[in-house]
């Protein structure tokens, strides 16, 4: 065998090995959580609040809390992020100011989530006096995922061929209409990818909601956005570190983790299905 074939095989081998490692890690984690968590999953576990100092009962308030917080974060971050991306990509004159904004966005992406938590505590909970509640938590998570959404949206807008913009403008269609009617619809699948990543991130984060929204324990369901909620990641954290029955509640911890993963994957799946449906109608 010639040397270049050996080299090629070595290279392909390395590539395959990296891909395999990543896949194995993901599958292993999911499998581990599934095996350890499935035993406690039951209808009651999903629909009842915890009881007996959270050693028994279900996790329904935490599921609901996470759904509220995550949807809130997306509702806040998606319009803000998409509009920022439109400004940066379509309107702003490329220059120093835009470069500074981009650096800012990238820096924001690198800020540790606990810092977001403290920022949310300082600004929303204390200064604006929202208190620890869904609103504060959703705002904090919204800011956390903003860079992800801005980044993905910008990439998606850049991927829309310039010829589409030209074609529309040359017809005497105003710029904002061109963006609204041509650019945005064609960028939608990419924007959705960003949102999917954002949803996953927002649902899984503990630190940002610790001080801004999450309750240690509450059996009552939130009546408004100014109520505290339980949340899945924080619930896992509490059971695994702060309770008095850490060992006994292991199965519940795994069950909660399984639910969290299932919830995120479920949302992702829906988004992916919608996205592929949109993509089917838009090819260029």
């Amino acid at each position, binding site marked *: 065998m010639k040397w270049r074939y050996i080299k090629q095989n070595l290279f392909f081998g390395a590539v395959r090995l990296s891909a395999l490692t990543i896949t194995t890690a993901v599958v292993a984690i999911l499998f581990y959580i599934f095996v350890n968590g499935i035993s406690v999953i039951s209808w009651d576990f999903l629909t009842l609040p915890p009881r007996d100092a959270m050693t028994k009962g279900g996790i329904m308030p935490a599921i609901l809390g996470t759904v509220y917080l995550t949807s809130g974060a997306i509702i806040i971050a998606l319009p803000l992020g998409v509009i920022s991306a439109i400004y940066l990509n379509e309107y702003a004159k490329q220059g120093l100011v835009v470069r500074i904004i981009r650096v800012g966005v990238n820096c924001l992406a690198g800020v540790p989530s606990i810092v977001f938590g403290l920022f949310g505590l300082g600004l929303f909970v204390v200064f604006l006096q929202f208190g620890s509640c869904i609103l504060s938590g959703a705002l904090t998570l919204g800011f956390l995922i903003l860079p992800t959404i801005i980044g993905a949206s910008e990439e998606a807008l850049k991927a829309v061929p310039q010829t589409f913009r030209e074609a529309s403008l040359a*017809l*005497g269609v105003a710029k904002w209409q061109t963006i609204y009617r041509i650019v945005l619809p064609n960028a939608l699948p990419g924007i959705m990818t960003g949102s999917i990543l954002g949803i996953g991130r927002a649902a899984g984060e503990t630190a940002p909601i610790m001080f801004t929204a999450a309750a240690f324990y509450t059996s009552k369901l939130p009546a408004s956005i100014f109520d505290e909620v339980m949340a899945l990641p924080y619930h896992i954290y509490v059971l695994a570190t702060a309770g008095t029955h850490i060992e006994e509640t292991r199965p519940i911890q795994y069950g909660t983790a399984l639910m969290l993963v299932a919830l995120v994957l479920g949302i992702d799946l829906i988004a992916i299905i919608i996205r592929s449906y949109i993509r089917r109608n838009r090819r260029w």
Partner: protein
Amino acid sequence: MVTIQDNCIIKVRNVDFYYGKFRALTDISMDFEKNRVTALIGPSGCGKSTLLRLLNRMNDLIDGSRVEGEVVFEGKNIYDQDIDPVEIRRRIGMVFQKPNPFPKSIFNNITYGPRLVGVRKKSDLEALVEQSLRQASLWDEAKDILGQSAMMLSGGQQQRVCIARALAMKPDVLLMDEPTSALDPISTAKIEELIEDLKKRYTIIIVTHNMQQAARISNYTGFFYLGKLIEYNPTEKIFTTPDVRQTEDYITGRFG
């Protein structure tokens, strides 16, 4: 040089154009006659496409570009402060080098512009689609597949969709930037026939690399070189007895 007295639709007067510091056009003055085909020819980078895109303010989109001089359309300089470029582009349509239909159905490609300027009634839109497609000689091929994506059509058909789309806005002038350079000879012939037909109703200004094409379809031809208008004359004269030596050299293929 050509000066058109009564039937002139666009007058370009002493236009300089800059991309940043680079001067792409130098002191261009030319008149375009109504209901005629004017071809702009010249080697790559000579400024002919730049001039074309100046006529409907498409160059506005380029950061750091600058225009000096006047482009007078119906008695008004289109670079005046109070002129809305969107309005200009409705009157002066454009077809691009590469067919660029939207990823929408043929029907929606054509109705996209008219809908945004207020044509709502379904029967009006349908009539407009038929009329535009007929003018673009695509009706017979497309009438049964109006709901299909325009992206599924061949390159030549796509280009005719783009022409129909431009015509649906009922412009006065149609600018064409090398509209056949991405097409095969048969599609090219169809588009050329179409241009012949369209000049009855529209003024057509076409940039082309293909000198035979310019000779076949145009009434006037302007030859550009290095950002200057070297010669502007009736096409017959340019291709038989050009006034300027450089024009002859280019047309006979001695450089270019």
